[in-house]
């Protein structure tokens, strides 16, 4: 069964001068939005998804070594993306801070929401979304479907 889903994701840039992060947003690997992020912005999704596994991804694509300015082991300036907030069906979903996975190119995966290097940050979920929210938020047991 296909169900509609309301999703928002708030991204905050870290940048300076003409060095701002280039990003893309994807739902199930399908591009939803892309561009240069110069200020904090909340993106709204209203999508219809079949029951099953899905993912939302944030890509960071234009970082080069010289974007990070370091002096005496102190970072003076940087280019990065911060995944600031996610809401699902109007609920602020704070669990994303440890449920999502950030996979920077050539570096180990982590659960960080600070995207400091090119790569993709991905939050996997399943639909029906309320069942997923029920389970991830430990809202108790659910009677089996075919009792």
């Amino acid at each position, binding site marked *: 069964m296909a169900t509609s889903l309301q999703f928002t994701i708030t991204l905050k840039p870290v940048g300076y001068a003409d060095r701002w992060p280039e990003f893309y947003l994807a739902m199930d690997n399908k591009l939803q939005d892309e561009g240069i992020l110069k200020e904090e912005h909340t993106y709204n999704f209203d999508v219809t998804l079949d029951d099953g596994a899905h993912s939302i991804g944030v890509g960071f694509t234009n970082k080069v070594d010289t974007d990070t300015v370091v002096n005496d082991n102190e970072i003076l300036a940087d280019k990065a993306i911060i995944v600031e907030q996610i809401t699902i069906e109007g609920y602020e979903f704070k669990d994303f801070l440890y449920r999502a996975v950030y996979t920077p190119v050539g570096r180990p995966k982590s659960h960080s929401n600070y995207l400091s290097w090119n790569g993709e940050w991905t939050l996997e979920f399943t639909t029906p979304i309320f069942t997923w929210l029920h389970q991830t938020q430990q809202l108790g047991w659910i009677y089996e*479907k075919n009792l």
Partner: protein
Amino acid sequence: MPNKDIFCNIPWYELHINHDGSYDLCGCMSKLITQTDAGQEWNIKNYPVEDYWQSRRLRDERLQKMSDTPNPACGVCQHQDSLGSHSKRIKENLKSVLFYDRNFYKSFEQSPHRAAFEYSLANDGATVTRPVSYHLSLGNECDLACVMCSPNSSFKLANDYKALGWIKDSRRLNWTDDQQVWDNFCSTLLATDLVSLHIIGGEPTINKRFHQLIDLFVANDRTDFSFSFTTNCMHNIDHLWDKLARFKRVEIGMSVETVNFSNDYVRYGSDIDTLLSNIAHFKDHAPENVAFVVRTVPTLLTINYYSQLIDWCLDNDFLIDSYFATDPAWQQIRLLPDSVKIHLQTEFQVQLSRYTTLSQSRIKGLTNFRNQAHVIENLISETHAALASVALGNQDPDLAAECVLKFKQLDSMRNNSVVKNFPMLQQYFESNGY
């Protein structure tokens, strides 16, 4: 699409049996059908569970839950909902993934049980589901006579009511005394894929059938479900721990109204020191699968000490499962004078601001008030409900007079004093003829 303020999944999954064997929709009905003509008719002695499950009565109940017409008998949940508290209806609906806020309709569309609900609508209330959750009273034997209890739930209270001329009859009502009915019911339970079984009072721990039931499940290795019961905490239950450890999950509801001397007045026959000592002992000795919840029935008396009780629950990491008194009507909180209500409003508002600072991380709307990890949210919700319960106005002079008269009569018989236990109400009682 059903009405979010009315829908309740209980008629599809849960069965409630009263002290006398009568079937009720659930334990939260405003008036149970115990000892009524309807209770004689809709009784486990006449209808085995499987027949009752598809009966006209339950079919009508399912159809009503799918309609826009509330059932007046569901007054307890309606009152809880009106206070913004977590009613049984809301908690049970979560087991069908039905959210209680603005997302009710969307969550209903996606509910894994939507097809079952709609099947009933299309088939005159019949259902493809089976009862997997039971809410049982095994009888009305209880060693306490709590002032806000029903005489149907406590034989001892019924005797007091009868002595005062408030009721004509007081009898032992245990349907479980009928051996054949009991044996058939036990067979039904063993043949059921139970999800949960909750035993209410009387006092279960002094009822032999309660112990037989536990032994039956343990002996048959049928313990893969949530077993719960409500107790007055006046009895040692050390002998149960090894057996209870076998169950998937156990929840012990502990009936407490206040955590000071006044609890002995309200829960007549109890002793607060013994009670608190037993609760501490339970916590220390219970196996890991046992959770605790404090069960309260706030009335115009106990609301005066409710913030103290809520603090005690926070200190002990206890959830509260409350039913703000609707019956007896003469103990409803709304009867309090505004002067008392204003004082209580301030007290609960201060408590709310304290608790809110403790709770910054939980997602609003995504709270399971039965989850031990959500204690602070549970207590905040409880404080909100307490605050709503002391809304100004809505007094009823006739009921207030009945309240004072009945406490006067009760105190006279028990050689007790409501104003000594609740001195903040002295003026209220004495100005109304106490």
